[in-house]
């Protein structure tokens, strides 16, 4: 049938991996689709862990003066919940979408650097494992005057200084032990993974577009990937250096962020949020992209104001670098800076508003099909507007000073990151499910999932707005009975368990549909973009022949034309075109060379956690082994060609 090349038997230093199925084929794969799927499953695994941590927090807060958790355990749980959800769940699940879809949407056979792509994935896995190994190896001592050492326990032996690790609280004096070192170095490793993938995606989008795929014909999801990659490339170096400083402060006696040594704790806040605010857009822009794909498809209308949405996305990314200090209105920054950052925060609402109105314009007058992806996208718009509006309230400095570190802020960013990013992600998971697995998901279970999640989400995070305004303080493990906060806290906890239930429904749907779902046609949604012109599930070689793109929403124009009044009319020849496409997609007529699998990405990546442990335990042997692994990986990589010589199949 196909003419995928077989790996040659040339004499390299190591033999080339050659299996096409089984565990080794996944470990050595450089196929963007397989890497995307692995990213997805790993991120979902961490999403479940982060969710469990949230449930533990909510059990503790369901009663006043509860003692389900000790203070030390509570600190560790909220720190790990935030860190996990941001760095190990939402960012990599977006990376899963980038990996799987980007080449398909621009008509490429793979990303620009397939082995680098595998390297980012494995560094992410090792980084996540390194961070979580804190539960085994980490120690969180008791600071002087703080909680007692015996209250720490194994649950408390995780990083406990909050996901933004404010100094000097996260320094050695107030967070003794090794737990915060695991945090600082773990994030460092995860940052390398994201940086590498940013190089890869930027290059892919600029250079791998198929014929006719001009910039202004790219799907919005590709544009948002482009914007996110730039945000990653320019914000991660800042946090990397700041984390270096933290590690030096903690391990080697410097005092970059410690007042007593002449350092500056507010500098940490600046560096962190200079990364941290672009990071917020790193989390939300992929969801913007997904929703911009789903809404036109299910409204059966073109996206309203394509160019405006694209430029608004880049506007957000650009202004996103100029608003960081609104996280610091309660810190020592001057009134001029407060006014300036308050203003820039209001300004960034403008391009965001442009997007919202464009989405509404897309739905307006459309023939809506309320399938699960569409429900999640509509839910996304509603929830994101609530979160966005409460965000604008933070630009009013006096109000923000009142809200800082209360549950109002917690409500705000969960509406943006859960109601926004995660709803968008679920929308995308259902939308592309048929393309990835070649099966249809169960629509009724999908809708049950949506409604349960919608109700659970609002019960969980809605009441936090007024709990915060009533004065419930964030990151505090108990509240007194006299504060009368109990009723809404119980509601919040019930809501959190409803979310957990909805996730179980989602998992059941996923597992059963993947195994026993109806066979999916290659274009189940009557969609608009070129990833739907190829068979479901996507063949290894993506496109049998490079597609040629003639317009924005090229696939739609292939299928439909307009009558005199501008209504879409299906072409007579459409059925035949679709049959031909399917036939061609399954049977490529030309020889296809794919990049060969490689061992070296995982070898190279495995050196990094060892270097991390070497810093924590100041161990020269560990550093040596880590460096040797890096060298072997790098040397093998450098001497191994991407594709072996091609051996023609005899049946050609």
């Amino acid at each position, binding site marked *: 049938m196909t003419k995928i090349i077989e790996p040659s038997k040339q004499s390299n230093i190591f033999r080339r991996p050659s299996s096409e199925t089984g565990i080794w084929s996944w470990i050595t794969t450089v196929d963007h689709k397989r890497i995307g799927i692995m990213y997805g499953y790993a991120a979902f695994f961490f999403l479940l862990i982060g969710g469990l941590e949230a449930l533990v927090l909510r059990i503790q807060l369901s009663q006043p003066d509860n003692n389900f958790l000790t203070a030390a355990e509570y600190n560790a749980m909220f720190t790990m919940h935030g860190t996990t959800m941001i760095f190990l769940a939402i960012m990599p699940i977006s990376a899963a979408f980038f990996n799987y879809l980007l080449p398909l949407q621009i008509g490429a056979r793979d990303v620009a650097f397939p082995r680098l792509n595998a390297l980012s994935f494995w560094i992410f896995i090792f980084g996540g494992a390194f961070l979580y190994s804190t539960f085994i190896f980490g120690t969180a001592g008791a600071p002087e005057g703080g909680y007692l050492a015996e209250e720490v326990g194994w649950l408390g032996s995780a990083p406990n200084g909050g996901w933004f690790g404010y100094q000097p609280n996260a320094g050695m004096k107030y967070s003794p032990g090794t737990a915060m070192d695991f945090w600082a170095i773990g994030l460092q490793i995860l940052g390398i993974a994201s940086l590498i993938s940013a190089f*890869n995606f930027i290059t892919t989008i600029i250079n*791998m577009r198929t014929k006719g795929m001009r910039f202004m014909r790219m799907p919005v999801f590709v544009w948002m990937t482009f914007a996110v990659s730039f945000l990653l490339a320019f914000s991660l170096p800042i946090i990397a*250096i700041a984390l270096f400083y933290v590690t030096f402060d903690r391990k080697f006696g410097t005092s970059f962020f410690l007042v007593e040594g002449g350092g500056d704790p507010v500098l940490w806040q600046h560096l962190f949020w200079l990364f941290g605010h672009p990071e917020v857009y790193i989390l939300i822009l992929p969801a913007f992209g997904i929703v911009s794909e789903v809404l036109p498809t299910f409204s059966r209308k073109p996206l309203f104001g394509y160019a405006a949405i694209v430029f608004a996305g880049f506007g957000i990314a650009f202004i996103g670098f100029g608003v960081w200090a609104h996280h610091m209105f309660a810190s020592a920054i001057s009134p001029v800076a407060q006014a300036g950052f308050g203003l820039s925060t209001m300004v960034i609402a403008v391009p965001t508003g442009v997007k919202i109105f464009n989405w509404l314009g897309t739905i307006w007058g459309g023939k809506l099909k309320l399938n699960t992806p569409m429900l999640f996208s509509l839910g996304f718009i509603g929830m994101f507007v609530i979160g966005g509006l409460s965000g604008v309230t933070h630009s009013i400095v006096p109000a923000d000073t009142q809200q800082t570190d209360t549950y109002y802020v917690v409500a705000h960013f969960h509406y943006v990151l859960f109601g926004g990013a995660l709803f968008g992600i679920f929308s995308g998971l259902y939308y592309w499910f048929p393309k990835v697995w070649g099966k249809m998901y169960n629509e009724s279970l999908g809708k049950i999932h949506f409604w349960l999640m919608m109700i659970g989400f609002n019960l969980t995070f809605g009441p936090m707005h007024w709990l915060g305004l009533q004065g419930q303080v964030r990151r505090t493990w108990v509240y007194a009975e006299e504060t009368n906060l109990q009723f809404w806290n119980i509601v919040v906890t019930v809501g959190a368990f409803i979310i957990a239930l909805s996730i179980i429904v989602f998992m059941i749907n996923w597992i059963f549909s993947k195994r026993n779902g109806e066979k999916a046609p290659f274009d189940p949604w009557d969609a608009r973009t070129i990833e739907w012109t190829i068979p479901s599930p996507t063949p290894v070689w993506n496109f049998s022949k490079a597609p040629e793109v003639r317009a924005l929403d090229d696939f739609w124009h292939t299928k439909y034309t307009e009558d005199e009044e501008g209504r879409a009319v299906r072409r007579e020849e459409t059925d035949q075109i679709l049959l031909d496409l399917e036939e061609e997609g399954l049977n490529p007529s030309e020889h296809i060379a794919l990049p060969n699998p490689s061992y070296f990405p995982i070898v190279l990546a495995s050196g990094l956690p060892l270097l991390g442990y070497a810093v924590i335990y100041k161990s020269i042997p560990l550093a040596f082994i880590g460096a040797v692994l890096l060298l072997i990986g790098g040397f093998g990589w450098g001497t191994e060609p991407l594709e072996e010589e091609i051996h023609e199949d005899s049946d050609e």
Partner: protein
Amino acid sequence: MSSSHAYPHEPTGVETRKLGFWVFLSTEILFFGTLITTFMIFKGSDFPGMKLTDVYDIPFTSISSFILLMSSLTMVLAHNALEANDQEKTRVWLLATAMLGAVFLAGQIYEFTEFYHKGFELSTNIFSSSFYVLTGFHGLHVFVGVVLLLALWGIGQRQKGLTLEGGMNLEFVALYWHFVDIVWIVLFTVVYLI
């Protein structure tokens, strides 16, 4: 490589690997930018203990800076030689570049040791910390560059010799090396001269 080249793309004119490498270098600017900014902030602040001006040796550092700059010249010569497909000259100039880089590194190690003996340690004060982390981070880059140059030199010993195609070839190492040099010009000015 054959079939992937046949796969048509929208042309942009920049070769893919080179483009990726430029993106990488652009993020390096931010790495050094953050370090330099921090150094500048702390340089102006009050701190107890020794200053760099109490220990530094401008003539010595100027000479080692000059050596690093000269290595950019030998790097260009290596690149030119390879373009003329003169394998032997390429190897000679590559080795010369690596050696000059190594001399610079030795100078930095000597300088650090001298400072250390004069009591200017990593944790002496905020100024010494930012100095060592900033210049050390640059030194690490030079070290990686020397390793890459030596690796190229080693690969150049093969029958086939070096080419300007495939993998991490001489052109990328040269780009990296020049970048590290330019950063040092900025660092030398900011750290020692201003």
